[in-house]
């Protein structure tokens, strides 16, 4: 029972991060129907930039929370620019090319970003300085920290903000219109290019915030961390129904919980044949099962020829 609650808490924390990253995938997919393969690297760059800012400001005597806030803002801004540039370089020129082409350019961009990160931040793991004084709370035999609480809280806040933006603001309306039918939307005076760029920018901002969360949760960062994270977040987006915002959030949380429970119980279930280092395969197994039985995801609409 203790393990169950503990793993649920860990799963929700991790799931909140996945959900934020998944939103970036799902927004872009919902509008232009392409997987932004380099999104995971954007998240990684976000973590790295936050790390640099925090380390360089840590000795300045500013209150730690302010330092953390500055790191968050700077990395968000950097990632927004990066997301915009990514769209300009790898996607916009190829919007009418065969579907494989933008996938290859996105892979190329993610190789470039990874190696730029390796040149700047080195190929070793870097430790994230803890900025929040850790407090540990107890709940029914399981423990959680204030870091976890703030991650879940901040993620919830960002999601509410996004929902407000998409459903109440003008740019959100333009996004929904473009997702339904780009040609008609542009006839109605929507600037398609701007809307698509905005989707990339907003997605990248959310990714940067998720990156900072990962950094302060695990207190570790690496130039290759974006790949696995991106893949899992994509799984979360597919699980919830790609193109569906609420689906991405639910899918992220669900995947986080599945993964945490799986890692906690796989040893018992297989008689210690498989250990918790198989944690990473759960995401893929979930992905394959979902795509086999319900390719449109849990909350997605069934479409004939989309997948």
């Amino acid at each position: 029972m203790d393990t169950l609650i503990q793993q649920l808490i860990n799963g929700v924390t991790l799931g909140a991060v996945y959900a934020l990253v998944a939103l970036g995938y799902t927004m872009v997919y919902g509008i232009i129907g392409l997987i932004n393969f380099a999104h995971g690297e954007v998240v990684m760059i976000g973590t790295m930039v936050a790390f640099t800012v925090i380390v360089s400001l840590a000795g300045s005597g500013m209150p730690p929370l302010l330092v953390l806030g500055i790191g968050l803002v700077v990395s968000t801004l950097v990632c927004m620019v990066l997301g915009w540039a990514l769209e300009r370089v790898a996607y916009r020129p190829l919007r009418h090319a065969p579907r494989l082409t933008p996938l290859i350019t996105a892979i190329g961009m993610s190789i470039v970003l990874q190696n730029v990160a390796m040149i700047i931040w080195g190929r070793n793991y870097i430790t994230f300085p803890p900025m929040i004084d850790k407090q540990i709370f107890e709940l029914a035999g399981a423990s959680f920290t204030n870091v976890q609480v703030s991650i879940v809280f901040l993620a919830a806040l960002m999601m509410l903000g996004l929902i407000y933006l998409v459903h109440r603001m003008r740019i959100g309306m333009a996004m929904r219109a473009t997702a339904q039918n780009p040609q008609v939307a542009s006839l109605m005076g929507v600037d398609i290019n701007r809307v698509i760029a905005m989707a990339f920018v907003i997605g990248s901002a959310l990714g940067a915030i998720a990156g900072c969360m990962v950094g302060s949760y695990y207190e570790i960062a690496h130039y290759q961390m974006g790949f696995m994270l991106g893949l899992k977040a994509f799984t979360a987006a597919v699980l919830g129904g790609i193109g569906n915002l609420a689906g991405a959030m639910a899918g992220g949380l669900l995947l986080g919980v599945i993964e945490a429970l799986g890692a906690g119980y796989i040893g018992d279930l297989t008689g210690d044949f498989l250990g918790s280092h198989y944690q990473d395969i759960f995401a893929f197994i979930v992905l394959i099962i979902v795509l086999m039985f319900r390719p449109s995801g849990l909350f997605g609409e069934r479409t004939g020829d989309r997948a």
Partner: protein
Amino acid sequence: MSTAIGKSLARQRHWLALLVIAVVLLLVPFVAALGGQAWVCIANFAILYVFLALGLNIVVGYAGLLDLGYVAFYAVGAYAYALLASPHFAIHLPFWVILPCGAALACIFGVLLGAPTLKLRGDYLAIVTLGFGEIIRIFMNNLNAPINITNGAQGITLIDPIRIGDFSFSQDSTFLGLTLSGPQKYYFLLVALAILVIVVNIRLQDSRIGRAWQAIREDEVAAKACGINTRNIKLLAFAMGASFGGIAGGVFSAMQGFVSPESFSLMESITILAMVVLGGMGHIPGVILGAVLLTALPEALRYGIEPLQKMVFGRMIVDPESLRMLVFGLALVLVMRFRPAGLWPSPQRRRELSESAG
């Protein structure tokens, strides 16, 4: 009358080109050996990649199924060879037993991957195959406990070379006064295998099966309506591509004498896919060009970047390894940006693209 002469001239030119290619292929290992055996090994890898890229070309180029986990089959073949011909399990079977076994095993894995993903297309298929490749790699990395099957991240060492009786591919031997080193012998073996796979590719291209694949690539619903059994034909593409990957893996194992999960990362899958796409999907000469270029480019960069940096800046500024990958990534972006059909696309495909653009 004149067309008949033209045709026979074209045929003559065809044979002449083949002759030139044959002579060049024959000379490569000896010219490369002048710069050291390392260059022969690079040539070997170039041909191994030609082999792999042509195998993947069946899946991606002909059938249009985007496979990002191709390296899984390569890995299955390599580990099959490593486990059945090394001191790890103290089994030493001859290569002509293991290579077909590896190919068959990879083929089974191909069907295992293909069956659940039959309904998926495009990006979704790409992600699932990618996940499959990662699952295989994670298993290879971790199947050393509680029963040691793959020896984990350390990999398997001391794998037997390919051997026929007393004739081993790992030692020097002399024919008619000509001494051939181990890598040079593997070179000729690989060339023979590559020619085999090229012939299979050419024969498949215009066969009933090949045309069915192309029909599925262009429009699956229409292909089904024309009476093509899309399920079986797609599975066949997966199975054939996988078998080629399995054979390549076996040869890789024997040639290196060592396998570890590190050789089968996602990056490897991406590199092979990039060879197919950069060269020109579905066009055999293009794919060969892509494979040779992408094997040669990183090596050229490895040897070129260091002196270049020293010359320009006077010292090493950037780690050559990461710069090499950086250039690789940029090359992918630029080629796709300016030649979306690849460097050497098939004439038909080029026509289609220019029509749709115009």
